[in-house]
């Protein structure tokens, strides 16, 4: 075990993967010598050479197109998109190509070895182009897995599992936690199974569901609720596509209440899909409407970030409203 922040945990996962398999490659804008603008690929070029860890020209559609080709060829590409806000030029390569590669060819070809890493989310005074949480654009796309870790331990285990997984994985990293989240992380390789939500803390009155950086905020609200005698079951979804319906449904069947919180705007966010599915599965168990505490339906603001975000106070109020429904 070693104490690592989230960046170190990711760097460590990449390092172990590259050491283990010479076909693993890391690339993206500024990823090479410089180690990425957040330094998550720091030291990898020195260790594994320029052919395996390198800068690309500044073109996200090119990066993912290139990565698709590499994966089809049998390499194990780990492509970085510098900010999730800049993943959209690569949208066609991801949604029409990555996600459909195996299906359209009848399994003659696939890009299952591909991992796309990208920092997402707000809370860093980044305004509308350095704060987005675009996960729902991808959870509605059959053929890719979507994974979001909440802390260093999870980040390493989930990233190693994503690299090993035989499907393309979009790995969203909560950049607000890169240096802020610190925890004990095993130094050796390990994997956390994809597709499984985790009950972070058990409870009886209401289920609180989230992922990534939002988990910390949900837990803070749960602690406030606990002081009021409300027992929250907190779940980290971890894999958003395909997602673990059973764990969530089981919890809601028990608690009778569900609150989902994410950073992205409310309308069209992934909470809507979860709410629709759980309403259906747990219809007779729900004691109050499923609550969604999310960003406002606007672009991500700058100076009014504090007001905009789904913070612990808003979640706490929504918990009370759900209990008192």
């Amino acid at each position, binding site marked *: 075990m070693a104490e690592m922040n989230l960046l170190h945990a990711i760097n460590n996962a990449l390092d172990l993967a590259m050491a283990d398999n010479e076909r693993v490659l890391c690339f993206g804008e500024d990823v090479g010598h410089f180690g990425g603008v957040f330094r998550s690929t720091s030291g990898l070029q020195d260790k594994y050479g320029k052919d395996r860890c390198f800068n690309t020209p500044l073109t996200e*559609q090119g990066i993912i*197109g*290139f990565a*698709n080709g590499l994966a*089809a*060829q049998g390499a194990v590409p780990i492509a970085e998109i510098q900010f999730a806000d800049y993943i959209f030029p690569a949208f066609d390569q991801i949604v029409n190509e990555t996600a459909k590669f195996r299906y359209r*060819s009848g399994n*003659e070809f696939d890009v299952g070895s591909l991992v796309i890493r990208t920092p997402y989310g707000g809370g860093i005074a980044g305004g509308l182009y350095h704060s987005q949480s675009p996960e729902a654009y991808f959870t509605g796309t059959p053929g890719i897995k979507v994974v979001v870790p909440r802390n260093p331990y999870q980040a390493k285990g989930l990233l190693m599992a994503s690299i090993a997984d035989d499907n393309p994985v979009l790995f969203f990293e909560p950049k607000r936690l890169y240096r802020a989240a610190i925890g004990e992380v095993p130094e050796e390789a390990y994997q956390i199974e994809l597709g499984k939500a985790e009950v972070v803390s058990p409870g009886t009155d209401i289920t609180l569901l989230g992922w990534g950086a939002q988990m910390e905020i949900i837990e803070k609200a749960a602690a406030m609720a606990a002081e009021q005698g409300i027992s929250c079951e907190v779940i980290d979804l971890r894999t958003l596509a*395909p997602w673990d319906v059973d764990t969530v449904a089981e919890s809601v069947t028990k608690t009778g209440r569900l609150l989902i919180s994410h950073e992205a705007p409310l309308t069209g966010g992934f909470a809507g899909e979860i709410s629709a599915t759980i309403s259906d599965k747990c219809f007779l168990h729900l004691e109050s409407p499923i609550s969604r505490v999310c960003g406002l339906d606007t672009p991500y603001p700058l100076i009014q970030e504090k007001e905009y975000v789904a913070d612990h106070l808003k979640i706490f109020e929504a918990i009370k409203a759900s209990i008192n429904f």
Partner: protein
Amino acid sequence: MNRPDQHVGAVIHQANFIAGNALEVPTLKVLAQDGSIYPNAALPEIDKDLALKIYDTMVFTRVLDERMVASQRQGRISFYMTCKGEEASIIGSAAALTDHDMIMAQYREHAALRYRGFTTANFMNQMFSNAKDLGKGRQMPIHYGSNELNYMTISSPLATQIPQATGYAYGQRLQGNQALTLCYFGEGAASEGDFHAGLNMAAVLKAPAIFYCRNNGYAISTSTDEQYAGDGIAPRGVGYGIETIRVDGNDCLAVLLATQEARKYALAHNKPVLIEAMSYRLGAHSTSDDPSGYRSKDEEELWAKIDGVQRFKLWLEQQGWWTEEQESERYQAYREEVLRELKVAEKIEPPSLQELVTDVYAEVPAHLSQQLEQLETHIAKYPSAYPSASKGAK
């Protein structure tokens, strides 16, 4: 190190613009229209076997195109696209590769797939979307692919294969197995952002790829003067620092020569090459298209006269390698073969219902198993409403 003198070639003191047409791009020609070799022309590496294999593929492609357009008209298949007019360009380039080289095509290059060994049954199974289609009946006709033959499955979104080819070739270079990737695309597709990304990355990252632009004059109804204002696609190569050549696409020997040289260069230097083959789409864009709405018969006839298949045949005859008798025999044989295989393929059952949910992921996830189960229960209630149940497939 970025130095102040890095890009400074000559210095000028007047604001003289480089003209948009400043780069002179010559065209490589080897074979004249009458089947003779131009005086002093270099010849590609070619012997009788190779020449006959090329021509055989040309004949097959002509027959296939003709038959399948007719089948589409008869309503037997839903859609088709011919490569008529571009056979010399496509087959000549494919013939310069080894079987280990990957081909990533746009869609109009089935002649290259045939050259690689795709059987007539393979073609038919794909076009009839039956259970034997390698693609499991999921894509429209002509979206072929074969792992065994190193021919990447066609994807409809244009130009996406270009940066993918760069990645594929990069992977080949790292594996050091002296293979490269040839990427076909149209002059229309070359307007997409993916073209720019793919070529620039290949040059910077030293990917041994041959980018082969089929400039056939049209992108559906859009003629080249509405597609670009420069001198075609070739000058763009220089913009990326890529070795480039323009070739007469109706001249199979010129295409073969250029591609053979490009392959040598790319593998020796770990660098990409751009080839622009000038030709013409003699047929409609697809069976959904009627070109009379946007171009003249005169124009079509002008190009039909300089057809590459005819030119290559004249050369073969001059070598004494081909006769009119062989010609009619071969056409006859292929017409029969295509018709026979067509009839077989259209009777083969469709893929099983289960294939609806396979290959979305490497394994079928829980939610898709459930969806399939629900679907099966539903179909059981209304068997006559669903082809899979009514035809008894499964």
